[in-house]
């Protein structure tokens, strides 16, 4: 989470920039605010289990992000938490639980130009044991030609075509951070 936070804070302005043509220019601020609370809470509460950690992350994202990404990332971590609590310990299964939670909450499908379009290929790559930074970046790039069907970007219809989805990009930061943490 430390690494994810670092990336979010570093790319805050870029995320907001992505949210400008097809949104309300706040995704950078939203994620940055949420993650600041997350790391602060981790710092003060020093969770001693993955379960405790996921709980802190879930609660802070839910209440501090403010945008659509709040309940969505919140649901994602809640889904991951539940899957872990059910006895699953592989990242593949846990992230799959997160993805399902996002879909349950946001009702978006693959191709709707949302964070799902990064989560779904990531889970798929894990199933095939091939999650790489390239897979993640390709998934982000692939949101560019899509027409948004969910979230604020869907209001501008055709005009959403040609722009990267901000939530897809922030999700990519999460997965890059995961890969980096794993490599350490």
């Amino acid at each position, binding site marked *: 989470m430390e690494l994810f936070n670092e990336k979010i804070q570093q790319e805050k302005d870029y995320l907001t920039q992505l949210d400008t043509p097809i949104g309300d220019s*706040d995704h950078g601020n939203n994620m940055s605010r949420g993650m600041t609370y997350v790391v602060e809470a981790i710092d003060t509460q020093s969770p001693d289990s993955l379960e405790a950690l996921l709980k802190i992350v879930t609660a802070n994202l839910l209440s501090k992000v403010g945008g659509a990404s709040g309940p969505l990332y*919140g*649901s994602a971590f809640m889904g991951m938490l539940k899957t872990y609590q059910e006895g699953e310990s592989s990242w593949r299964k846990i992230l799959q639980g997160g993805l399902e939670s996002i879909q349950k909450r*946001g009702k978006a499908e693959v191709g709707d130009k949302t964070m799902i379009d990064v989560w779904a290929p990531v889970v798929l790559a894990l199933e095939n044991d091939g999650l790489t930074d390239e897979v993640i970046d390709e998934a982000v790039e692939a949101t560019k030609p899509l027409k948004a069907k969910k979230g604020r970007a869907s209001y501008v219809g055709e005009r959403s075509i040609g722009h990267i989805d901000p939530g897809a990009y922030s999700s990519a930061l999460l997965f890059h951070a995961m890969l980096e943490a794993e490599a350490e």
Partner: protein
Amino acid sequence: MTTGIIIVSHVYEIAKGINRLLQEVASDVNIEVVGGISEVEIGTSFDNILQLIEQHPSDNLLAFYDLGSAKMNLEMARELSEKSITIYDVPIVEGSYTAAALLQADVANNVIEQQLKELHIYK
């Protein structure tokens, strides 16, 4: 079990303004509103909504919201609350005004449901 209204907007002033509009025609109806994640910051937050629901005097709530992400937070809060909460995909101002006027006039719930159905929009 009394029926009340909750309003969730992205903006502080919209929520406050709707409350004033509804109070005019429905001074006996319990109406609670929340707008923004603070007075100046636009957005919605799951905690604020859950808190609003829990402190609301009624157990049966008709819920109105403006944009999609407010609905997601409302749904999460509904899952965690014991109260009966119906979320309407209707215009936040016009829909909640209709509901308030009908509740004030003691109109039956199924009639209110029907009237709100006519205001359904895709959002």
